[in-house]
């Protein structure tokens, strides 16, 4: 299998027939968990991830007393792959969660100031991601499902200082729709939306977060490979271009 994929890549082809700069078919199912304030299942080809938003009343951080709190967590479910054992998140799951966190946070996609409740009380927004089928390009799929879940999320009603579950006071104050485009470098070529087998063969990936106004809100290089500045420039162009396709889905 791996050899077959490698041979194809060497010839500038992919075994699923896509060209290098095409996404797999993307399908999004919203509101998949009724208990969540917002949720979305994203299928990117065979990759499947689910994101859910829960909200709770919390204390603000000392250095931002008027802002809500965002907490992003990611798990690789043992459901998703024969190689994943049950247990706490490993370094890859933690890196994934932290990239998603930075994309949401640095893009200012949520207006956190609107999540102030009263002196000493703000909303905490939990975004929980679970990878259900590990078939490549997890970051892009997770950012997409997180943003979809956030844009759908409703704020629970508060009565007498307590949350009334299953009643809502409005939508989450969302501003931007950032997405990431992860670009793999293979020989001197670039390709997007890699499958799990392609990822095994490729050791240089650049994750680029792009906001609606084409601003770059996050970059993370992954893998042992290296990039020249000129290659980074090419990746940024590609990311800006391809980000529009993903953003339309949110």
């Amino acid at each position: 299998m791996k050899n077959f994929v490698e041979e194809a890549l060497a010839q500038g082809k992919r075994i699923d027939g896509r060209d290098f700069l095409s996404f797999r078919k993307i399908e999004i199912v919203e509101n998949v968990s009724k208990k969540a304030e917002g949720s979305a299942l994203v299928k990117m080809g065979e990759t499947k991830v689910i994101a859910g938003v829960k909200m709770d009343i919390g204390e603000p951080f000392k250095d931002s007393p008027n802002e809500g709190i965002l907490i992003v967590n990611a798990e690789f479910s043992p459901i998703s792959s024969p190689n994943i054992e049950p247990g706490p998140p490993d370094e890859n799951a933690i890196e994934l969660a932290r990239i998603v966190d930075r994309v949401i946070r640095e893009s200012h996609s949520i207006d956190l100031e609107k999540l102030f409740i009263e002196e000493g009380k703000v909303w905490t927004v939990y975004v929980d991601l679970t990878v259900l089928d590990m078939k490549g390009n997890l970051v892009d799929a997770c950012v997409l499902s997180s943003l979809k879940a956030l844009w759908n999320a409703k704020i629970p009603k508060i009565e007498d200082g307590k949350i009334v579950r299953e009643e809502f006071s409005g939508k989450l104050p969302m501003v931007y729709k950032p997405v990431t485009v992860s670009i793999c470098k293979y020989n001197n070529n670039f390709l997007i939306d890699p499958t799990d087998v392609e990822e095994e063969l490729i050791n240089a990936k650049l994750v680029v977060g792009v906001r609606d106004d084409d601003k770059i809100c996050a970059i993370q290089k992954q893998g042992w490979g290296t990039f020249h500045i000129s290659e980074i420039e090419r990746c940024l162009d590609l990311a800006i271009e391809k980000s529009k396709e993903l953003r339309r889905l949110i």
Partner: protein
Amino acid sequence: MGKKTNIQLMVDGRRIDGRLPEQLREIEMKIGEIENADGSARVRFGNTEALVAVYGPRSLFPKFLQESDMAILRVVYSMAPFSVDERKNPAPDRRSIEISKVTKDALSGAVFLEEFPRTVIDVYEYIIQADGSTRVTAINAASLALASAGIPMKDLVAACSVGKIGDVLIVDLCGKEDNYSESDMAVAMMPSKGLITLLQMDGRLTKEEVLQLLKKAEENCKKIYEMQKKALLEKFKVVGED
């Protein structure tokens, strides 16, 4: 269960979600959605939904865990943090560990483990949304996932919950009924021979009431069993009672 509440669980013969006492929720069963898994199934009872993947039989390491004359079946039950009212910490809690254990007991008896010595069969259960009866919903899905992985079984395992509100017996408890009804019971069985593989009961019931509930559970496990067989045949099915 049995927590005090002002909530009226039964009004004019209708349950809190509008169902009749012996009515199951809308049931959906879907097989084979997880590409990486050897077998998988998703089962939804109303707003309770479980996704289950099976990996195996596969080699088991370290070796001292192997059984020389049979496969080991392992079960991990876990819940999405967003599947419940208050966000759940994803680390396994004591309830999840107990459910994993009794589910392992409930499934092991149905699988021909002796055909795969020295191996392990891993059953991973994941609750996407939780509105009561999660353990039985997950067992229904697990049974389908095992079958779809081609693992030889004596029979499918079908499962449901039953309970009691006042003098009324109810089936397929939703979340509020789980919390506030007087007594409840989780039952799994191999329906064709009436063999019970899981039984847990809480509450305060006479012997006669226990037996009535058990019979009600058996009836409904048989209905669910028919749906499971259909789902396996068609590999896609939405069924229900609404």
